[in-house]
């Protein structure tokens, strides 16, 4: 709870900072603040007395799970904020808005992951979503950005309606929004049919958020149209948050998921992977490609939910690996395309020559997403496969493997462009911050790749 309050406080501070004309200092100060909050959160991790200690009427429940994920969200936000400084340099007057929105987004995220009450969950997801609507449409004069914002808004609020409906039906069955209460009741009592429908609607709402097939259509369009910074946020932070929340929801709403629902999950998972990967093959826009790649990764992450008992650590590891690779790649993508009209793959031609370091980082992050060893993406997939085989879904694993193979196809398209094509322009200077973010993110990725226990042991 302290984390949430601190984050909200920081958000408010960002808004006020504008008044005091602290715009130039805003980014460093925010990062500093976030680091402090990160420290605070991590310290919570080692104080077990906080866990399961009802506060504020059980609105927020702190647990190892929520702390670990919150830390991950904060780290991701630090990266995103760090990149914002340069990204919004032409909109310096509004920078405090942009940063504040990101911080509030983080607040929503933390609320989503540590909710103890469905109302908190609903507030969290709405804070997160509304922030994203704004960010998606934030390039006011750009038609693509407008369209992205509009589409995201329409579909997002539609999904919000579904989620709300779901919560309502659950409430009707349970007479409470308290998850502990729901959890215990869901195991014992005979439940009215609308409880199940409510759960399904709620989960479908989350599937929409993580962009799983067939609720994925918004993702490519919105990713492409949004400003790159927002795309980065959506594809890393927002996706990870939604995934973790989905896990938590499944955990609390129905401890033993019904076999039928597992089948649905398996099908959605396989469909997401397949559709995402195959559609990504023919994309020329890098952001769009990563959107489809994100859809397929959503499918992979859904696989983790097939074995709920061990899913928490797996999911934490997978999301960390995926998000860190995503941050690293977006750092490069933003750098490369920042004064380009679009994000077409041709913009990356010859990057290997003009900027070997950036090219290497992008390559590494793509390899990680493709699941090549020593990068954490490999372990993420591997642990996922092992776990899913243990549960008995060999077919899903085989589908996943085939998809991994397909995914190499488009990841390598980008790598090929960087190393085999001739560059259209000369080398240009890279602002320090891009290097810093990209290098730190990919190093973190590799470190957890070499020592998976660092992450895997957190939730045990």
């Amino acid at each position: 709870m302290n984390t949430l309050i601190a984050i909200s406080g920081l958000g408010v501070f960002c808004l006020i900072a504008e008044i005091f004309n602290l715009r130039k200092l805003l980014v460093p100060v925010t990062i500093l603040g976030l680091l402090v909050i990160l420290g605070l959160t991590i310290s919570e991790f080692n104080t077990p007395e906080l866990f399961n200690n009802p506060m504020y009427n059980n609105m927020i429940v702190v647990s190892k799970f929520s702390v670990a994920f919150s830390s991950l969200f904060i780290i991701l936000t630090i990266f995103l904020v760090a990149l914002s400084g340069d990204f919004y340099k032409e909109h310096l007057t509004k920078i405090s808005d942009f940063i504040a929105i990101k911080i509030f987004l983080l607040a929503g995220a933390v609320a989503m992951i540590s909710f103890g009450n469905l109302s908190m969950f609903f507030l969290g997801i709405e804070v997160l979503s509304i922030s994203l609507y704004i960010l998606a449409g934030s390039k006011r004069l750009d038609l693509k950005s407008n369209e992205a914002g509009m589409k995201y808004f329409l579909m997002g609020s539609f999904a919000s309606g579904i989620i709300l409906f779901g919560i309502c039906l659950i409430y009707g069955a349970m007479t409470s929004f308290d998850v502990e209460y729901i959890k215990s009741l869901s195991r014992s009592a005979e439940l009215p049919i609308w409880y199940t429908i409510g759960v399904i609607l709620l989960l479908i709402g989350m599937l929409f958020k993580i962009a799983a097939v067939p609720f994925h259509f918004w993702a490519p369009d919105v990713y492409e149209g949004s400003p790159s910074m927002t795309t980065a946020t959506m594809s890393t932070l927002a996706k990870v948050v939604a995934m973790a929340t989905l896990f938590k929801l499944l955990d609390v709403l129905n401890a033993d998921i019904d076999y039928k629902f597992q089948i649905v999950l398996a099908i959605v998972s396989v469909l997401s992977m397949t559709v995402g990967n195959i559609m990504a093959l023919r994309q020329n826009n890098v952001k769009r490609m990563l959107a489809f790649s994100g859809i397929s990764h959503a499918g992979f992450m859904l696989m983790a939910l097939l074995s709920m008992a061990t899913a928490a650590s797996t999911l934490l590891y997978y999301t960390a690996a995926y998000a860190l690779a995503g941050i690293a790649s977006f750092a490069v993508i933003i750098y490369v395309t920042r004064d380009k009209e679009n994000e077409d793959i041709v913009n990356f031609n010859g990057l290997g020559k003009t900027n070997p370091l950036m090219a290497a980082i992008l390559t590494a992050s793509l390899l990680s997403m493709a699941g090549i060893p020593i990068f954490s993406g490999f372990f993420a997939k591997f642990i996922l496969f092992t776990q899913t085989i243990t549960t008995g879904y060999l077919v899903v694993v085989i589908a996943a493997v085939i998809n991994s193979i397909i995914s190499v196809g488009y990841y390598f398209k980008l790598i090929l462009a960087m190393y085999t094509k001739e560059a259209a322009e000369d080398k240009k200077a890279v602002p320090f911050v891009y290097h810093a973010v990209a290098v730190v993110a990919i190093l973190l990725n590799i470190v957890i790749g070499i020592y998976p226990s660092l992450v895997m042991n957190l939730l045990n």
Partner: protein
Amino acid sequence: MNNVINEIGIENYIFLASLLFCIGVFGVLYRRNAIIVFMSIEIMLNAVNLLFVAFSTFRQDAEGQVFVFFSMAVAAAEVAVGLAILVSVYRNVGSIDIANLKNLKG
């Protein structure tokens, strides 16, 4: 109040709310005017709010009604943002027909 609900039957409230919700859904699906789409979404949300209140009464529990306040606030915020986006779309495109928003595809 409770009697009323018991007499009518909670199922009927659920059907009503569902019906309203579906009307909202179809509105979103078939209308092309953005404003009307927004309104349809509002219908969906309000259908849910109605159901919340019904459940709240049915269960003799105040939490549901509190939740409605949250949901209304959120819906308001959402629509505010939505309208803002709509305005900028209108400025760029000169229309609020969502069928025109097809630049991003493929």
